[in-house]
């Protein structure tokens, strides 16, 4: 009997983990649908504006820095690569397409996850363990409507805007290295940016930004909201672990979703 158990136990454990993942995924989707339904509640607008300021406006500085240096690095790397093929002139197209299609949405989403996503998970987690969410329920204020819906709505508004901002700053970064440092003609650079990037590329980038916004806000809010149900820890430690889980799961899922969306768009 014991021998049989030792053969089956890894399978049992794997099954248990798989079931837990499936359950959690189902719970997350329901959580998202319930919260999304309440985005259009009449009292939401002031809270959504507050969250757009926190998630969007206050992330602008970090997005500027990351965008600028990403564009500069790309300008430098691609310039040296393209020179080998005698096509340094298309630097503008290469930088702009990489940024608009891939790097812009992905890096922006990761940056916002680090800055605002972690804060969402921690803030909601602390509200859970200090009974503030219970207090909302006793006041008949739906915590999903009050805490989660505005964050999802604000993310959906902020992610594409910040992605666009990242793209612009990145293209400017490519200009600094390619034109100002490497001596490429400025008119050539901008001509290739304008002719190389098509509307579908921009739309695709925005689609990705919206998908990442939904994923990041859902995962971070979900992790914070159910901090009290963690089995591995309690209290402040549970808030810490929920925040870590929120950031790690969000980053991984951003990359997975990036591949899925790209393959659907191409």
């Amino acid at each position, binding site marked *: 009997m014991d021998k049989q158990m030792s053969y089956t136990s890894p399978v049992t454990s794997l099954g248990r983990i798989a079931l837990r993942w499936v359950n959690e995924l189902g719970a997350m989707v329901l959580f998202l649908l319930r919260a999304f339904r309440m985005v259009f509640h009449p009292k939401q607008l002031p809270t959504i504006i507050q969250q757009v300021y926190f998630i969007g406006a206050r992330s602008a500085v970090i997005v500027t820095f990351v965008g600028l240096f990403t564009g500069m690095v790309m300008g430098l790397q691609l310039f040296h690569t393209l020179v080998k093929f005698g096509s340094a002139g298309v630097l503008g197209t290469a930088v702009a397409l990489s940024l608009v299609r891939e790097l812009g949405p992905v890096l922006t989403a990761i940056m916002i996850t680090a800055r605002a996503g972690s804060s969402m998970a921690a803030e909601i987690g602390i509200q859970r363990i*200090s009974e*503030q969410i219970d207090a909302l329920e*006793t006041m008949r204020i739906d915590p999903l409507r009050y805490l989660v819906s505005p964050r999802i709505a604000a993310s959906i508004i902020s992610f594409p805007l910040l992605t666009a901002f990242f793209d612009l700053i990145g293209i400017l970064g490519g200009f600094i290295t390619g034109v100002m440092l490497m001596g490429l003609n400025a008119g050539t650079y901008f001509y290739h940016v304008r002719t190389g990037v098509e509307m579908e590329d921009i739309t695709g980038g925005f689609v990705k930004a919206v998908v990442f916004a939904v994923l990041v806000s859902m995962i971070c809010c979900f992790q914070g909201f159910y901090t009290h149900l963690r089995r591995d820890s309690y209290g402040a430690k549970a808030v810490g672990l929920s925040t870590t889980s929120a950031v790690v799961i969000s980053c991984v899922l951003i990359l997975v979703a990036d591949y899925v969306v790209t393959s659907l768009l191409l």
Partner: protein
Amino acid sequence: MKTPLIEFQKVSKRFNGHAVLDRVDLSIYEGEVTTIIGKSGSGKSVLLKHIIGLLAPDEGTILFRGRPVQKMSRSERDRTFRQISYMFQNNALFDSMTVFENIALPLRQTTHLSQGAIEERVRVRMEQMELTDAAHSYPSELSGGMQKRVALSRALVIDPKIVLFDEPTTGQDVIRRNAILSMIAQYQRKFGFTAILISHDLPDVFFISNRILALNEGSIIFQGTPEQFEEFDHPFIDEFVQSLEDFQEHLTGIQSKRQFRVRNQMGLRRKGPQDSYVVALFTLQDFDQLCEQLGHTRGQEVLNAMGAYLNKHFGAVGGFSARQSKKQFTTFLPFSNLNEAERILKKFGQDLQKEGLRTIQAEAHVSQDICFPFAILAGFAESRAGGEEIDLVFKAVEASQKEIARVYCEVRR
């Protein structure tokens, strides 16, 4: 027969296999103050969370006005629970919001009142709770007592029909504790809500409660009036009530009613059946108006000073006093007969009018410039050690009360 507002029928709740509530039966009636007492960890907070719907029972039924909650539609349940406010033990204030925003939150999120109307209601509530100066502070910048008052303001700001108070006086000094209880009693009478309290503050909480529920090891072992509770004979009383009274510093610095009765009985046993004694009763008339004018904290300080004054005065002639109700004191004069007592009380009344009221005002830290009209009534009755029950004596005393001192305020023109 009166239908209970809330009724538990064989309600059980387990956490990790441990029964926190075990087949609990209880009734809570509309318009009353019901206090739930019990040792720490006996399931009092869990019981309250069942009433407000934060927890659902594993077994048994909870009824609201005779309707089982489990059978209510979602909208009916929502309507029912919307009438209830809950004050958490740890306050559960939103630490990233100011005091004003915390109190305004339920109005902003659950009503369609205009911004001006919300601000006015919050301002009035903050004034009543003496929180005006803290309006723009954050909860972490306030003392424990002030946080409690913010939580109380938030619970009352929506004018609920039922208010649950989970240890509303924890962490308060004796004056504030009684001020909060007095405030709860006053608002309960004024707005007519049903109050359900969890409290350890015996006997203070008895003065405002209509019913007491005692929870012991997950079961209700007593339901009844505070007077019935004082007669209730159970090991729980010795373990819980007595232990609390031993180390309790009472508001008035004098004995509790229970201690008073014990000491009274001991005193009477030492006397012959024909030996007389006198019981006097003092009432602070218009106490509620006094609290409204001076604030609940000052009101309790006046009561405190009055208790100290009585103790000082009658202690000298071998008397001892106890707080009889929210605004009444009883004094037992074991070595006096009716004639002596009449003389003593007459002298007491003169002293009180001449300088006592001024002393009480000073002791209560009420500025001499502030005049608050109030009167003290007194009555007394004689009985014999082998005579009638003490409760009958109290009734006779109450009937004989008349005014012995009054503060007159000049009307300035």
